[in-house]
């Protein structure tokens, strides 16, 4: 079943979509990408996600999975042969802690570690990916810099390390386009 076709329905500016893309790339899973236009959603999207009508949607072997946090867990469980690419801890307690932070979405607890689960990227890091890239245009628009080396040093360092990772660096929306998009959205 792992070999069946994988499709991602997404939107180029969505941090939620990127979480899914990063997870698939980290697992080495090949997928087709379909860009959705929100003013004209595809028939497939409406069929696959009739409840929320939103992206991301992961379609695996013709079957849809929706909600980014649900998709991330699905990816982790389906492509689980290689322990080197596991994105959640193997210990049940550590997993419950990771799920708490994925769920929380605002607070940060990095401690002295490079990434949330140690030295490797995991699902918690992907969930906070928006901070590393999507906060920038918002800060620029609002004129307030919250995330700086002197204000939130550990988190700031995390965004540097995060964006340095090849899978992330090579898979980010263009900053200028994102700023334009964010500006338009706020009008």
């Amino acid at each position, binding site marked *: 079943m792992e070999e069946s076709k994988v499709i991602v329905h997404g939107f180029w500016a969505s941090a939620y979509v990127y979480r899914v893309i990063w997870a698939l790339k980290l697992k080495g899973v090949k997928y087709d990408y379909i860009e959705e236009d929100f003013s004209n959603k595809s028939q497939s999207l409406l069929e696959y996600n009739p409840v929320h009508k939103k992206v991301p949607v992961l379609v695996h072997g013709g079957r849809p999975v929706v909600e980014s946090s649900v998709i991330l867990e699905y990816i982790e469980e389906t492509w689980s042969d290689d322990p080197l690419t596991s994105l959640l801890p193997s210990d049940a*307690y550590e997993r419950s802690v990771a799920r708490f932070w994925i769920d929380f979405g605002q607070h940060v607890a990095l401690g002295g570690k490079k990434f949330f689960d140690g030295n490797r990227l995991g699902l918690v890091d992907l969930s906070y990916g928006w901070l590393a890239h999507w906060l920038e245009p918002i800060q620029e628009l609002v004129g307030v810099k919250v995330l700086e080396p002197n204000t939130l040093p550990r988190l700031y360092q995390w965004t540097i390390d995060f964006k340095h990772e090849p899978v992330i660096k090579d898979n980010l929306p263009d900053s200028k386009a994102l700023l334009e998009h964010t500006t338009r959205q706020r009008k």
Partner: protein
Amino acid sequence: MADEVVLLDTFFSMFGMRARLALAEKGIEYEYKEENLGDKSPVLLEMNPVHKKIPVLIHNGKPVCESLIIVQYIDEVWKDNNSPSLLPSDPYQKAQARFWADFVDKKLYDAGRRLCTTKGDELETAKKDFIEVLKLLEAELGEKSYFGGENFGFGDVALITYSNWFYSYETCGNFSVEEHCPKLMEWVKRCMEKESVSKSLADPKKIYDSILVFKKKHGFE
């Protein structure tokens, strides 16, 4: 080494009930501690410093927070003790169960809260929203015995704990769930036949009484 399991909870919380229900399904013995939300215990504040909310499951001194995370944790830790699994083993079925549990929390809680705290047009909107969500859930249930299929599972755990709140929602909103969603009420009755469910849920009238106290205290009359 014997497991030490403690649950910090309040009797009327539909979230706390999920933890109680999962523990009962898996046959786990635990110590129940009732929290007074107006005067939270030092243990609660220490174990859930981020949200300061119940339920909190404390397993051998280590806290697990958020009801659905607690249920998954219980299912994973005690998976080999000959009790039924709450989550399916197939990743796709698991994703479906997680989706509906997430849907319940995103949509039902908010509509229910508005039903209990608003008046006039806002109340009518809340009622409409609430019934719409239940109808979607009823459609998802379809002809199955449970949301999990043949067996009671994660999706059932997520929703059944709202059922003892139906009386309160119906009274505040002046409507009947049974009238709009008869199949869903059949599912509720089916679940209530399970001992783990009936002993984990609270008395609907007692829940309503606690809502009245809350409404009076916060001026929602």
